[in-house]
Each structure stands twice: as structure tokens, then as C-alpha cells.
């Protein structure tokens, strides 16, 4: 049914309303995006397979969207899917609730005072008046004709009925399943349309007041019907609702009131204090009140989901989401709705702006933490899938968003390590096997797979996961595997062209080393960039700002430019400082710093890039200073390297104070980078 409506609306819009069409297109695109990742969902083995597929065939996103448009009607698909998977919920339809006939209706003559003023779409309004004008003219003409020839009106009448017949047949042939209901509805609609009640603002006020006053007030159904009508407003013009919303205030009032008060209302109905956890919902299911309220709750949830699907404004979405979140546990009683909610939230989380993304993430997190295991699974796999699908490109605009997505996935996966560990391990093994193949064959396609943002973002996601959870869980196997993969990546792409990628690897290794406390040598990975020698021509391509974070491979024309050399040397120093700062209180710091110092000093002597001289010199001094400091300290001790405990306790006090000069230097460096 909804499918029907949607199609009709679109047809109309396509014909007549360019601006609306544009909006719809946007909406469509959103849906396509949502549907693209959905294909790589479900159980874990499949997921890994899909991940692999995803890796192997970097699908052109546009193509994907196009395909989506061609193959699926997004709305229809969505709704059909729902009906399919809701085994238990099939019985109750997504219709209106049976109403309380004694509900008060206060009729007022306030129907749409002057909507024109409020509406900003001037074009549409103009069009409307114009059409109106023409309509009047034509009507006048018609009536004239009818007057002139009374037989014509008879002819017209017969023609019309014929036309209707053929039209219904057309529909019949169009989609067979729906016809009977369509026909019925057509007739019913015609009948009811006269009966449908107009809800005025005073009616709403009274209703709201009544609902708040008496928890068991039977008119709640009417209010929820009104809510449903409001949610569906404007999108299903063909459907005839038993209620008619008088004006925008009513519309607004119904939506906000129901959304914000739903939790309280339903709590009152079920006679519970609130939805604190799963158990209350389970208990609640056994209560006698549940039977009566079930359909009400369901209607409310359905309508809200519909609103989420239809709405495109971020702020409204955020509002709806935050209100739904208050009563999110209600969803746990309706698995199919939960699935829908997950689907929508993931979509909004991936595509929305900052606030929207955050609030959808909160929904997801709540579902993952509070709901049954199945839902956690779906949340994890779908969340990961959506992240992977969306991390194909890195641009300055979306770098923050991707980081947020990454963090959210880590959060989701950190909720239940027992469960997610297997998934993560499988994913990392997948990455490792891709890498192994590439190392063996060295084929271009294989290398391309690794040398992609998708791969790198995936690795960096798991690095984050490991470093967040290493302290509390035994993730050693995973840690070693990831280190192996990262080292393999660095090994696979030597040469200055791939320095940005290498910096990323080193950064991840530092991160892992820092969180796990194991020693990972990274220095040799950075020495390369001390030996790049450019052509030294200053007039070469001058870039305002060369951001290595956004690159995996340096474009050829930049390779010899001074900007690139400067940027790479500075990044290398930063990473080196990161590495050294981790061990700056360790007894072997002077030895660790020996080779970097020798090489840096030589670089400092030989380099032709004046701009890096100073930072390099400063760095050398700081390292040297710390080295001397440790040297002095360790000359005073009497234990040997094999005395593990003494080694571990060496300079622990200073470490806790973070008193060494090098620490301060490093902190400074970080702050400068931020500023």
C-alpha cells in the first residue's frame, strides 16, 4: 500500500514539481546508500566473505546507487521486507487503531488560516494560484458546455465511469496482489472521506490534557491515530485517514507531544516506573495491561519509524531519535521493529551530520548493550559493514566523520569483548590473508587492495579496538597478528612515494606499543625519509598546505618538491618523538636513541632544506639531553640488565611525575600540533 502511495506521489512530483523532485532525489540517494551496505549484512561467516568481496571489488559507489535506483523501489522494498520478517507481528496490521467514538471533537472554524504566508516555497504557491485560476476558467467552460448541451453531461458521466473501470483494470494488471484492497479502498475512501474528522488545535489540547490526566483514557487511540496521520502527512495523499489535521500548529503539537510524552504515557498504562532494563520489559509482557497497550505501543513505534524514514531534516531527526531513545526498551518487545530501527539508525549514523550521527550512534549503542544477543550481532556486523562501505575515500571534509564512525564502531565492539573478539579476529585474519597473497604474488591488483583507504581504515579501526581494550582483556594473539599485518604493509610499499602510508603504519604501531607496553621497533621505518633528496628547485609546485594524513601515496609531481620533503621529515620526527617518549624513562633509552641520533646528526649536517634544520636540531638536543640524563642515572645503579624487577622499577618515580625534560618536550610538540 505504501508502495502504491509512494509511487503515485513520485509520479506526480516528477510531472509537476521540480523542487520536490529534487528533494525526493536526495531522499532516494539516502536510501540507496542505506541499502548498499545492507547487502553485506548477516551472519559472521557471510560477513567475512562479504568483506572480502568488498575488498576485492571496489564497487563504484555511483554505480551502486544507480543499480539501487534501477532495481529496487526503496520504500517498497523496505516495507515488503518488514512484512516478510515479522512473523509474530503479521496479525496486527499497520493500520489505524480502532477509535473511541466518544472522544471529544471540538470543531472550530480555524482551518488553515493562511498557510501561504508561512510557506517559503514561493514557486509552489504561485503555481498553485495559477493552476487554481486555470481550473476555474476551465470549469466555467465545462459548465457552459454542459448547459448548452444537456446530453453532453450524460455522455460525460458514462465516459467517466468507463474510464474508472479501465483504470481499475490497469491497476489490476499493474500489481496483482494489491488490487482487491485497492479497489476496496477506493470505494471506502470515497465514503469515508466525508466522514474523516478534522482535528483542531483545541481538540488536541483537550486530548493532551485528558491523556495526561487519566492514564487509561480510551481516547489515546485517537491521539495515536492522529500521530500516525501526522507522521504520514504529505506522503500518502492517496490514503484516506480517519483524521484530518487542521493546521500546522496541530501538526506540530501532535508530533512533539506524543514523542516527548510517550514514555510517560506508556509507563502509566503499564503501571511501571520506567524502563530501566530488560527485565522490566520481560515482566511487563506478562502483565494483563500488556494486551491492551500492545497495539497502542506498536502503533506509536511504527509511526515514529515511519517518520524517521521520511524525514530529511537533521534537527527533526535528532529530536525524534532522542525522544525514541527514552523509550527504546519498548522496541525489545517487537523484534521486527527493532531490526528496522537498527537499519534506520545505521543509515542515519553513517550519513547524517555530526549531531544526527551521534544520536543515532547512541540508539545503536543502547540496542547493542540492552537488547538480546541477536541484535548485538546485527548492530556489530551492520555497523562494521557501514563503516567499511563509507571509508573508501578520505577528504578533508569527512576525516572527522570517519574518525567518529571509527570511534563508534570501537565503542560498539567494546561492549561485549567476548562476542566481538571472534569477529575482530576473523576480520584481521581476513586482512592478513589478503596481505599474504599480495606479499607472495606482488600482483598489481592485490597491492591495490591493500593500498586503499578501506584496508587502512579497517586496520586502524582494529588497532584502536585493541589499544582500547588491551589493558582489560587478553588480546595478545590479536595484537601480534595486527602488528604483523602493519609491518607487512610497511614492507610491501617501500620507497618515498608511499611515505604517507608508512607514517600511518608507524603511528598505528606506536599506538599499539603504547597501549600494550610491548616494544615495537619502528625507527628503521622512518630512516628512509632522511635520505630523500629532491631536485631542490624552489620554483616547483608550491602547495599551501600538504596534508600527509589525507594521502596514501604521494603524487609524482610532489615527490621532489621541498614541501613534501619538509612535511615528511617533520612527520618522521614527530613519530620518532612519539616512539622515544614511550621509552624515555627506560634504562636502555640511550641505546635506543643511538642510531637515530647518529643518522639525524648526519642529516642535519647535510640537509639543504633550511626550514627543517631548526626542528631537527631541537629534537636532537632534546634526545641527547634525555639520553645523557638516563646515562647518568644508570651509571649510579648496580643492577644488571637481567635483573628484571630492578629494570622495571628504574625511574618509575620520574615516570609517574612526567618530570623529564623529554616528556615536556613531547607534550609541547603535541600541543603545537593541535594548535
Amino acid at each position: 500500500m505504501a508502495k502504491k502511495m509512494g509511487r503515485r506521489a513520485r509520479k506526480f512530483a516528477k510531472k509537476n514539481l521540480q523542487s520536490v523532485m529534487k528533494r525526493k532525489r536526495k531522499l532516494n540517494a539516502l536510501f540507496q546508500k542505506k541499502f548498499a551496505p545492507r547487502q553485506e549484512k548477516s551472519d559472521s561467516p557471510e560477513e567475512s566473505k562479504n568483506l572480502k568481496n568488498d575488498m576485492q571489488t571496489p564497487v563504484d559507489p555511483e554505480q551502486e546507487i544507480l543499480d539501487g535506483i534501477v532495481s529496487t523501489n526503496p520504500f517498497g522494498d523496505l516495507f515488503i521486507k518488514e512484512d516478510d520478517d515479522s512473523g509474530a507481528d503479521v496479525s496486527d496490521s499497520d493500520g489505524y487503531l480502532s477509535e473511541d467514538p466518544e472522544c471529544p471533537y471540538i470543531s472550530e472554524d480555524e482551518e488553515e488560516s493562511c498557510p501561504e504566508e508561512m510557506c517559503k516555497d514561493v514557486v509552489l504557491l504561485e503555481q498553485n494560484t495559477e493552476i487554481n485560476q486555470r481550473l476555474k476558467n476551465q470549469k466555467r467552460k465545462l459548465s457552459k458546455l454542459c448547459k448548452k448541451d444537456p446530453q453532453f453531461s450524460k455522455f460525460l458521466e458514462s465516459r467517466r465511469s468507463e474510464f474508472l473501470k479501465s483504470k481499475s483494470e490497469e491497476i489490476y494488471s499493474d500489481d496483482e496482489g494489491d488490487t482487491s484492497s485497492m479497489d476496496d479502498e477506493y470505494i471506502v475512501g470515497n465514503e469515508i472521506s466525508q466522514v474523516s474528522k478534522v482535528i483542531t488545535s483545541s481538540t488536541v489540547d483537550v486530548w493532551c490534557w485528558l491523556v495526561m490526566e487519566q492514564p487509561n483514557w480510551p481516547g489515546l487511540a485517537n491521539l495515536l491515530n492522529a500521530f500516525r496521520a501526522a507522521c504520514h502527512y504529505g506522503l500518502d495523499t492517496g490514503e484516506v485517514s480517519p483524521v484530518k489535521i487542521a493546521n500546522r500548529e496541530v501538526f506540530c503539537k501532535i508530533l512533539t507531544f506524543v514523542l516527548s510524552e510517550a514514555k510517560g504515557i506508556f509507563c502509566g498504562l503499564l503501571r511501571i516506573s520506567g524502563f530501566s532494563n530488560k527485565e522490566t520489559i520481560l515482566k511487563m509482557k506478562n502483565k494483563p495491561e500488556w494486551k491492551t497497550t500492545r497495539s497502542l505501543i506498536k502503533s506509536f513505534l511504527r509511526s515514529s519509524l515511519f517518520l524517521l524514514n521520511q524525514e530529511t531534516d537533521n534537527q527533526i531527526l535528532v529530536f525524534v531519535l532522542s525522544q525514541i531513545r527514552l523509550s527504546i526498551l519498548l522496541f525489545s518487545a517487537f523484534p521486527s521493529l527493532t531490526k528496522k530501527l537498527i537499519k534506520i539508525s545505521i543509515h542515519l549514523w553513517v550519513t547524517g551530520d555530526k549531531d544526527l550521527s551521534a544520536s543515532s550512534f547512541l540508539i545503536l549503542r543502547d540496542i547493542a548493550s540492552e537488547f538480546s544477543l541477536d541484535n548485538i550481532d546485527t548492530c556489530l556486523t551492520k555497523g562494521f559493514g557501514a563503516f567499511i562501505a563509507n571509508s573508501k575515500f578520505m577528504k578533508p571534509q569527512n576525516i572527522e566523520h570517519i574518525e567518529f564512525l571509527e570511534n563508534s564502531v570501537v565503542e560498539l565492539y567494546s561492549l561485549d569483548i567476548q562476542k566481538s573478539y571472534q569477529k575482530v579476529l576473523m576480520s584481521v585474519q581476513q586482512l592478513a590473508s589478503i596481505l599474504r597473497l599480495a606479499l607472495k604474488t606482488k600482483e598489481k591488483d592485490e597491492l591495490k587492495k591493500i593500498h586503499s583507504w578501506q584496508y587502512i581504515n579497517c586496520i586502524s579501526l582494529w588497532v584502536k579496538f585493541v589499544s582500547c581494550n588491551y589493558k582489560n582483556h587478553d588480546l595478545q594473539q590479536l595484537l601480534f597478528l595486527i602488528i604483523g599485518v602493519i609491518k607487512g604493509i610497511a614492507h610491501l610499499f617501500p620507497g618515498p612515494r608511499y611515505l604517507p602510508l608508512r607514517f600511518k603504519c608507524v603511528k598505528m604501531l606506536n599506538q599499539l606499543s603504547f597501549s600494550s607496553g610491548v616494544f615495537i621497533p619502528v625507527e628503521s621505518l622512518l630512516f628512509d625519509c632522511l635520505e630523500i633528496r629532491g631536485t631542490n628547485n624552489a620554483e616547483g609546485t608550491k602547495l599551501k598546505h600538504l596534508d600527509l594524513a589525507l594521502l596514501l601515496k604521494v603524487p609524482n609531481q610532489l615527490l621532489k618538491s621541498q614541501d613534501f620533503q619538509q612535511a615528511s621529515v617533520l612527520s618522521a620526527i614527530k613519530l620518532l618523538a612519539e616512539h622515544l617518549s614511550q621509552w624515555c624513562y627506560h634504562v636502555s633509552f640511550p641505546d635506543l636513541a643511538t642510531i637515530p641520533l647518529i643518522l639525524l646528526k648526519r642529516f642535519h649536517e647535510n640537509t639543504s632544506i633550511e626550514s627543517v634544520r631548526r626542528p631537527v636540531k631541537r629534537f636532537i638536543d632534546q634526545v641527547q639531553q634525555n639520553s645523557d640524563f638516563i646515562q647518568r642515572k644508570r651509571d649510579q645503579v648496580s643492577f644488571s640488565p637481567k635483573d628484571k624487577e630492578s629494570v622495571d622499577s628504574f625511574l618509575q618515580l620520574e615516570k609517574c611525575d612526567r618530570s623529564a625534560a623529554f616528556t615536556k618536550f613531547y607534550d609541547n610538540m603535541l600541543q603545537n600540533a593541535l594548535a
Partner: protein
Amino acid sequence: MGKKRKVILPPDLPPEVADNDIEVSDEDLEFIGQNREYAGFLTKLDTKSIDRHVKRVAGHESDDLEALYEQRKRKASLLKQNDDDDKLQVDPVDALPVKTLDGKLEYRTVDRTKSEAITNEKDNTEENEKDMSVVKLTKKEKRLKIKKSRKEAKKEAKVEEKGNVGVEKLHTEVLAKVEEDLSAEELFRKKKIKLAEIGLQLLENPEENIKSLKELLKNCDDGNQNIVKLGLMSLLAVFKDIIPGYRIRLPTEKEMEMTVSKAVLKQRFYESTLLNSYKAYLAKLIAMEKKPSLRQVAVRCLASLLDAVPHFNYRENILAIVIKNISSPDDTIRKLCCNATKSIFLNEGKHGGEATFEAVRLIAQQVKIYECQLHPDSIEVLSSLTFDEDIGKPDTQAEAVKIKKKGKWKTPDGSNKLQGSEKKKTRQESLAKTREEVTADFKSVSFAPDSRERKRMQSETLSAVFEIYFRILKHSTDSHASRSTTDAASFSHGSSSLPLLAPCLKGLGKFSHLIDLDFMGDLMRCLKQLAGYSDHGTIQNPLSVSERLQCCIVAFRVMRNNLEALNIDLQDFFVQLYNLLLEYRPDRDQGEVLAEALKIMLCEGKQHDMQRAAAFIKRLATFSLSYGSAEAMAALVTLKHLLQKNSKCRNLLENDAGGGSLSGLVSKYQPDATDPNLSGALGSVLWELSLLTKHYNSSISSMAASIMSMGSVNPAQSQVFLSTASPLQAFRDSSILCELSKPTSKSATSRQKQRELQKDYVLMDPEVMQNGNLVDEDEVRRKLEDRFAVHKVITENERLRKELNHTLSSISLYEEYNRQKKQKRKRTTKRVLGD
């Protein structure tokens, strides 16, 4: 079998014709009918062999027609293309009997195609073969057949004519073109067949048909390159087959004058013809080698000749060309030449070693002419040379030196060098003398003159090889010197400017045990210079780190093989290794070379000076802190070796106050010293190991732990765990690929620390998250109202439009209504009128 074919053939034709072209099918059928007539006529004449001929004709004709159709289809296509197509098409045709002068030829074509692996025709050909052998026996039959085939030729011409006429009728405008194509195709095919015929004749009976070689040669002057190529290749096949296993010596004039038997004359004639044609053939090849389009074929022929008949006359000429192309920029040519040269080196039995020497000499010339700017492959081939083990032994060595450089061996004799082993030497010499006598006796008795000769050959070859190597080294050092003075800025990897150095070093490493002591000093000086480390960094040295490490390795190899003989100070090489450890970059340089250098220079060989050992121990420990697992592992294995060998160095493991007393000149450790002896490493402590125990790689951390524990075990015991692994092995074992392939199945061991869900945020700031959720409700309200308004307008718009359309259609219906009304009225008036 003839009958069988006859039965098979006719039904084959019609469907094909129908498929291709209906227009011609009438004629085709006509032809077949005619053929049948002919066939019938022929069978009357001769029953046995004519069956086959008839069949042959039929088959041939059908092919002609097929070709015709094919041609017609591709009227527009180029002649050349047609040729190519034809080539493809003709091959299967050859499988069938073809119109020929006599039966023999026909059989050969078939045979040839058979070798082209057309298997479904095999049965037929075999049968044919049998038949042929029968036919060949009697001369009478031969004659008969010739007659018949002549007749057939006539008949075929007729048929062709008719076919053309038929075509003319239908496609007059394309006729000329088709004919042209046909003739070209025909010509090509005829030539090809002829080539095959002659070739097979030659193979079958070289003595009789030796003259045909000239005919074949003539074919190679054809205008068509394809024919030329085919001709060259068939000649190659023929020569490979008929060239005798000896070298032909043409009779001298004196000999010519002598009267000899008929057989000898014949043999002489045969040999001289063969030799002359071979000469002409080679001349042709050599000439063609200069033409770019034919170069590849020519080189291929030359290379395979060299491979197949290196003993035969004119080998020198072939060798010259092959070696000339050994560093050709064309990959296939180069590969062909290299492989041919390698086969010369490997199969010395074929030519007795002379060719080897010649080849090496030629390569040496090339190297000299091109000033070492050749493809590395050209030097690489030398490593497939093999020398007898005893070539380096005194007797032969003495001999070699006697031949090459007289006197040189005698003058700087054992007195200054071989003090230690003089006794041994003299005994050896006496032994050698007796052996020489014995061999001389043996030689005089036995027929084989070779073992001496062979040794001479080998030693000459060897000296030529070393000449090449030394030339390359010399060149490298020269250019190295010039480069370091002129342009230091243009840094490039050595491999590009000195392409031959790497294979040269490899070869030197391989033959290091054969190097003449005389060269030793020079060689060492060269290597030292090449490996040379200058204080000003890497820029001045054009050689890559791997190459320099290779230099060190070669130097040590050479030294180790001649340790008794020489006492050159290797300290410089140690200094270089000590510093090269810092220059090494994991993915740029070859880790295996480094590991090998560590193995040869530090693990093997004699005891080290304590200072030096300590310096290396310290440096290796520091090295493993900065480098990847594989390198670190190799370094640690070496370090362990050193600690095991130098028990005193185990003091480095302990933090004693007395550690400094051991350190000689330098009391304090200088990490950036360039000379290991001056680093004062004895005064240091191996603190690195404590950090290495935290290494992520478990094998490294356990290795570090085991090294640390060495200090406490008393020296006598520690000998027990002398690890067997070499640095090279360790390097390979912990390479990244191996590291990745480690099984990680033990995934279930996740610590069951927290069964419950973790409710805290691990990454994000919860407060920020919550705050981000606040929405301005008024704003939302406003937006909701907007939304309502927009939707309202849209709904309104839609409704209005619907209504408008409705009325419009109603109005348009009015016209229709009027029309109908008029018709009605007409009808009624008509009816009225009709009434």
C-alpha cells in the same frame, strides 16, 4: 581406405556450402558431380592407388572452394591478412593429400602436418604412409603415378577455370581481386609445400639429395618475409639433423689430385656441398641479423645451432654473433643468446671446452669494448661455468701460470709467503712431479690426449673470466673515484651506473677458491676501495649498501679459501661492516646479504680481537633495537655466537663497576665512533637486552632473555648451547611472510575477566555525547511547521492538478461527443434519405 574416404567426402560438402553461400552451392554441386565423374573414370583406369588420388583431388578442390568463399567474405581485407588466414587454413589442408608431382611428396606434407599435431588426421596419414611405402617400392608405379598426377594437374586446372568462370558469372566485379588473392595464396602455399618437400627429402636421404640444400637456400631470398622465415627455420631443422658429429675438413689440393674410390668421391662431394651450403646459410643469417625485422629469427637460428652443433665448422662466427647479442636490449634475443652461451658452458662434452674459452674470450672483449656498460645478464652467464676441482691444485696451477705468465710464479716463490707451509708445499711439488711423469707415460700409451689439454683449456678460461671480473672491478673503482670527486649531488644507486658489478661480485664469490694468489693483493685493494666507507656519509659512494656488503663477503670468502697463503689485514672490512650496519635500510637493501655478511665475517673464521668483538656485540644489540624482526633476529644470533666465542665479552652482560678496567684505550663507550676498536664498547653494558625482552616478537624476546642468562652460566657449560642456527637462517625464519603465516588459532584463550557487558565508554567522552544530543525544541517546532506547510501546499497542488486535468479531459471529450453526434445525425439522415 580410399573407398572409405570417398564415402565420407561427398556428404561433407553440401552442408558447408549451404552454410556459406547459397548462390555458389549450385556450382559446387555441379563440381562435385563432375568430380564424381572423374573419380569414376579414374577408378576404371587404376584401382588401387587412384582411389586415393581421386580423393585427393576432391579434397583439394573442396579446399579451394572453401578458400574461395573465405576470400569472397573478406574481399576488403588486405592481401597480407589473407595470407595469414590462408596459412591457418592451409595447414589442415596439408593434412589431406594434395596435388603433387608424385606420391612421395604428398606423403611428406602429410607427415609434416602430423608433426603439427593434427591428431584427427593421424589415422589417415598413417594409412597413407603405409600406402606410400608400398608405392615407393616399384619404379613402374612411380612412373605411372607421375603420369596420372600430370593428368590430374590438367584436370584440376580445368576445374579451377570452371570455378572461376562460375564466379565470374556471379561476381564479375570482384573476380580480379579474388584471382589475385588466390594466386598469392597459391604461390605462398606452393612455396611452403616445396620447402617442406625438399626438407623432408633431405632428411630422408641426405646423401642423395644434398644438392637440394642450395634450392632451399635460394628460397631464403624470397621477397616474402614469411617464406624467408620458414626457409630459415627448415634449413635449421635440416642442418641440425644432418650435420655430422665431426668437423669437416675439406681435402687439400694434394689430396684432390690423388685418385680415390667412388665412395670417397661421393663422400667428398657430399661434405663439401654440405659445408658450402652451411657457410652460405650462416652468411645469410649473419646478414639478416643486421635487419631489425629478421633479427629475432636469425638469432634464434644461430643460438640453436650453437646449442646443437658447437663442434662443427664456423663455430667461431656463430659465437661471435651470439656473444655480440648477449646484452641486447631485446629481452627475447638476450635470453636466447644467454641460454645458448650457458649451454656451451654446461655441455663441454660437445666441443671439448674450446668453445667455452672462445665464448669467455669474446665476452671479455665485449666488456672491454663497451667499458662495462652491458646488461648484467651477460656476466651472469659466467656463473654457470664449471671448473674441475683440481684446477686450482699446484700442478695445473703451475702449468697455467707457466703458459699465461711465464716466470711470475717462480720469482715471488714460497720464501716470503709460505713460511708456514713450505714443507707441505715442497712435498706437494715432489708429488706433483711424480704424478706428472706418470701422466706423461700414461698419455703416451693411451689414446686420450685430453686431461692435460683440458686443464690447459680450463685454466685459460679461468684466467679470461678473472680478467673480466677484474676489469669490471677496476672500472668500478675508477668510476667510483671519479664520481666522488665530480658530482656528489646526483645520487644514484650504483646498480644503474655499474650494471655489471653485482653479477661480478657474485661470480667472484663463487670462484673465489680459484683465484690466483698473484691477483689477491690487487683484488683486495679493489674490494677495499669499493666497500670503502668515507666519513662524509653515503653520498659519495655510488655503490649500494648491498653491493658494499657483497664486497666484504667476497673479500672474506677469498681470504678464507686462501687463509694459509695470505695474511692480509681484514680490519678495514670490519670497520666497513661496523658502519654499514647503520646504513642498512630494511626494504631497500637485501637483508639476506646482510645476514650472510654477518655470518661470514663474524660467526665464522678465527677468533676476534676482544675490543672488536665487544664493539660488534654492542652495535648489534643497538642495531636490533631499531630494526625489524628479521634483521634483529639475525643480529642477535650473531651476537650470541660472538658472546659464546669470546667469553670475556660476557662482562657486557653485567653491570660491574670493574667493567671499565678491561677497556683499553677508550674508557667510555662512544656510540658514534666509526672504528670498532676505538669505540670503548668493553666498558658498556648491554642494556638493550632488557628492552628487547619486551619485544613483541616472542622469538626475539626469548632470544634476548637467553642471551642475558649467558652471563651467569659458567663459561665451560655455556658451550653446550651453541646454537646451530646461522644468521641467514634466522633472517629467513622471521621474515614478514613467515611472521604472518604463524597460526593464530588459539583465539579462544581470551581472558574471562569480565563476563558482563562493559557499560563505560572506552574512547568517547560520555558527556560530550550526551550534550550533543540536546536539540533546540523551538527550532524543531518551527521546522515541523514548515514541513507541514510544504506538504500542505504540495497536497493542494496535487489536488488542483488532478481536478484541472479532469476538467480539461472533459472539455476535450466534448469534441468527441460532437463528432459522435454528427455521425449519428448523418446516419439518421442517411437512413432517412435511404428510406
